[in-house]
Structures are given as C-alpha cells and as structure tokens.
C-alpha cells in the first residue's frame, strides 16, 4: 500500500500555476526523489504535503488518512517530518535543545505540569534529554550539544536539522535539497545516512538537484517541469527518458531558435 498518495494536486499563486494536476504515490519503505529544473514546483509540492498551505485543488492522503487542509503540526503528529531548503534551525537555542524540540510530539506534559515540575514531568524530561543526545550521536555531533546552533557550519546545521526531524520518529521524512551546500565528502556521508534511515523503516521523499546522489540512492523518481509531471519511474528509466533529457539539456529546436 502507498504511504503517501497525491491526487491531481493544483496550486495557483495569483496568476501563476505552480502545480497543475500532479499525481503520485510514495510506497512505504522506499526512497523517492522529485527532480526538475528550478521553478518546476518541487518545493511547492513539499509545502503541500507538509501542510504549509492547502492545495488550490486536489487531495493528499497519508497512511490512509486524508491530510488535505490540515495544519503542519497536525500532519507532523501523523508522522511526517521535514527539513528545509535553507535550513531552519532555532539559532538562539543550543544544538541539543534544537533536537529536543523534535521530541515535542513524543512528550505530553502541559503548561501546569511543567510549571509545577510534577515527578512524572521530571522523568519525562530526563528521558527526552537522553533520546535527543542519542539522536545527536547518530549524526556524529554529540560533542556540540551545548553550543548555540547559530555557531555551527552550514553542513553541521543540515545534520542537526536532520537529527531534529528524526527525533519526531516520523514514518515519512521529507528532505528539501539535503545536499545543497555540502561538499563531496559530506554528500557521500549523506547518501549512506539516507539509506540507513530507509533501512530503519522510514520512508524518504526528497527534492534534490545533485543528480548523481539522486540516481545513486533513489528507488523511484518523479520528474516535474513547469508544474506538470513529465515522467515517473526507477532511476535507470529516468536517465534515458528523452523528455527528461530535453528538459535538462534543452531541445535542439529551442537552442537553434534561441
């Protein structure tokens, strides 16, 4: 069964059509990539899936639940976590605190319980701190736990953002250009890490421009252009698809006339 199903998604911003009747599915336990040139609608698609804004038309179902029109926090509670293209950490908080925020959904004490420090709340807080530390360990940044997130390098920030997303224990992880700004070594590490995440049972949907990374790790690819689907399939098929090649390299006719 598909974990995520999108049906005829349309998104218009004023007169601009960002997405036009895009449908796709993400199967549970796989890595799916969305590719396409700038302005193809990839990030818009992510924003619809994570509920940043509702689609103009169309429906999204996650894990059998209709999520169209739900708020981001409600979709997160169903098991969807995401990272952002330009990394959105809480810069004035420490690295550990950032990851601890990711545990918000997995903890439950409210304003009163926290203000009064009920015994259960203290236990929960300790467990929360430990699991956040473990998550930091997982991305190899445990030694930076106490420093403000704003003092990290860009590559490290990406890893913290990933750790924070994983701390929510998602079923589906959305990665928005996870390799942008990373060097080759870091990109290599990232590929291994994304596979590891999938092998642990988390389904991954990513937007990425680095084609070697996409072809390397994806089980399935959706190619978009100007808000419409060009084709969909496994990497080998996408690589040889004339329409994809035309979009990326330009068609002969266009080159001649331009």
């Amino acid at each position, binding site marked *: 069964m598909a974990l995520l199903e999108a049906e005829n998604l349309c998104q218009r911003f004023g007169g601009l059509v960002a997405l036009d009747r895009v449908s796709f599915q993400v199967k549970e336990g796989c890595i799916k990539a969305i590719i396409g040139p700038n302005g193809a609608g990839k990030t818009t698609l992510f924003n619809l899936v994570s509920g940043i804004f509702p689609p103009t038309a169309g429906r999204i179902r996650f894990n059998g639940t209709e999520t169209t029109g739900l708020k981001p926090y409600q979709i997160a509670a169903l098991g969807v976590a995401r990272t952002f293209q330009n990394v959105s950490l809480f810069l*004035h908080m420490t690295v550990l605190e950032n990851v601890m925020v990711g545990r918000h959904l997995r903890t439950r004490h409210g304003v009163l319980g926290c203000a009064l420090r009920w015994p259960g709340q203290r236990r929960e807080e300790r467990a929360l701190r430990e699991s956040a530390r473990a998550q930091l360990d997982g991305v190899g940044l445990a030694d930076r736990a106490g420093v403000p997130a704003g003092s990290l390098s860009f590559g490290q920030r990406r890893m913290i953002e990933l750790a924070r997303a994983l701390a929510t224990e998602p079923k589906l992880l959305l990665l928005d250009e996870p390799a942008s700004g990373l060097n080759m070594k870091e990109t290599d590490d990232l590929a291994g890490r994304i596979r590891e995440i999938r092998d642990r049972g988390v389904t991954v949907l990513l937007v990425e421009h680095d084609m070697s990374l996409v072809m390397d790790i994806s089980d399935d690819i959706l190619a978009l252009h100007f808000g419409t689907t060009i084709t969909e399939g496994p990497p080998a098929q996408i690589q040889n698809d004339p329409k994809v090649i035309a979009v990326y390299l330009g068609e002969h006719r266009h080159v001649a006339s331009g």
Partner: protein
Amino acid sequence: MKSRSALQVLLVAAGVVLIQLGVSAAGKTYYLTQLTMAVYYAIVVMGLSLLMGYAGQVSLGHGAFFALGGFLSAFLTTHNFAALKSAAWASTLQKLGVLASRKNLYDGSELLTVTPWAAFGAAMLLTLVVATVIGYPSLRLKGHYLAMATLGFGLIIYRILLGTPQLGAADGITGVPAWSLGFGLSVSGKSALRVQNYYIACAVALVVLALLVNLVNSRIGRALRAVHGGELAANTMGINTARLKLQAFVASAVLAAAAGSFLTHFNEGIGPSEASALKSVRYVALVAAGGMANLPGALIVSTLLTFLSLRGWFGTYDSAVFGLILIVIVSLAPDGPLKPIGRWVQMWRGWLLGRKEARHGAA
C-alpha cells in the same frame, strides 16, 4: 544540580531578609511600603518577560490587565450587595463564603460585599476570558498583531474606567478592605503590617519566579523559544504554535491581573491611571531592562527601578526616564544590563587569574 538550586533559594531568601533587616535597622521601614509595591509590579514584568522574551510576542496592554484584576477585586469587595440580601441565592453565596457582611468603617452600617478570595477568583476568571478573546484572533496570525490588539484593548479599558462613575471614574476605588490569606497573614496597607506584607509580596513573587523558571526550562519553554526562533519550523515539528502563543499570553495576562488584585488590597485602592498606555509601555521597558528572556533579571531590575520611581527619584521626568531606559537598553545592551556586567566580571577575573598564572609560570 539539586544542591545548587537549594543554594540559590537560600541566597535569595537571605537577600530578602537582609534587605528588610537593613531597612528596619536604618529606621526607614516606610521604604518597605514602596518595596512591596515594586515587588508586586515586578510580577507583571516577569509575566510579560515570558511573553516577550520567550514567546516573542509583545503586549502593550498589560497595564490594562493589571487594572482589570485590581478593579474587579476593588469593586467586588467594596460594592454593597445588601439590596440582594433577600434573594435565596444570596444566602447560598454567603454560606459558600463568596459574600460576607462587614461593618462600614466610616458610619458603622452593615455592608454585604464579596470576600477578597472570591473577588480574586473572579478577577482571574474574567482575565482568562478577556485575554483569550483578545489573543485568539491575533495570535493565529504571524507578526505583531497582538501588540496592536492589546494597545487598543488598553486604551478602551482606560477610557471605560475614566468614564464609569460606579468604578469611581477619575478617582478610582478607595476603602478596599484587607485580604486575609489565612495563617494570620493579611494583605493590607496598615503600617503595623508593613514587614509582614513585604514578606508576603516577596513570597508571591518568588513562587511566580520559580514556576516560570520551571516552565521555560521544560518542553513548553523550548517550544515557546522555538516559535520565537522560527514559527514555521516549530509548526512542522508538531507544535501547535497558535495555541502555545495563546497559552503564554493568557498566563502572562493572568499574572498581571493577580498582581493587580494583590497590590489593590495592599494599597487599599486603585486608580484608572494603572490602565494607561504609559504604564503598559513602562512594563515593556522594564522587561527590556531585565534582559528580555531573563526572569530573575526581570524581577531584580524591575523591583529596583520601580522602587526608585516610587521614591520619586526621577521627579517629573518619571515616564521620560523609562522611555530613555527602553532606548538605551535596546540600542546598547539588548540582552539587558545584567549579562554584559556578568561578562565584564568574567573578563576581569580571567584577566586577573591569567596574570597570576603568568607570574607563577615565570617563577
């Protein structure tokens, strides 16, 4: 960790006692009156610090919430409900301790008024409702809509208080009775109870401080700071940002109203100027002076500055001084004055220790 917080509590308690002993020994116990008032005002500032420093939202109506608590307490405990005495529910309320009869201080006539505890409860409840009504629409949006909504609210409350004869119009309400808290303690302005009231105010303020410090160091506090740092990212982490901001705002407003109730009983009255926009802006300035997201700083700095203001140090420039403080803090020391001072101390200590070590190394 535990011994450290115990030590802190001990230090703070020692400080509170030392101030009282020092002031009494110097024969200036009347200072305690202004200190007590300043401590109650500091509760408003701590609550506002939660909202501004942690949740990143500004309220320009906290003076009005203070007045809401104060005026409801004052009105209910002074208004004579004797006309309703015959009603069946009046006697039920009397049995429940909501209404009580007492002697009028001036002419010895019988008064039927709401008891201070019940009035306090009513004030808290009203503030809860009002703050929710104001906060709900404006906190669903991103940006500083709350500041505008609360500014409007404050102006309305101020005008209502000035224009309502039942609430004393420009004179406000006087003759508010003492509030006996139990255990032989009562919030009252009698000079014989000055020392006791100083301790009551300090105890209330420190309990509020402890609760707020616990809160900001918990998942709720982290979530609040996350909302401040990036609302969208916080939302995608599963935080219901609109609800959380509303909770912080309501808690902050309720604290302001509670301080208003306490101070009204202590002062035995309240005037409409408490709800003025100048007062609200002063609270904002004090939060900034305390270091925005620094609760102990808010308590200490606010108590000190308000005390000086109440003693008349700033003369006719009183409000101007607070405006100046706001400008200076925001432009020169956005973390408040305490953190830079702490850094200087660290720096000097490091420098001195470094020299000592260098000498030892050379020898």
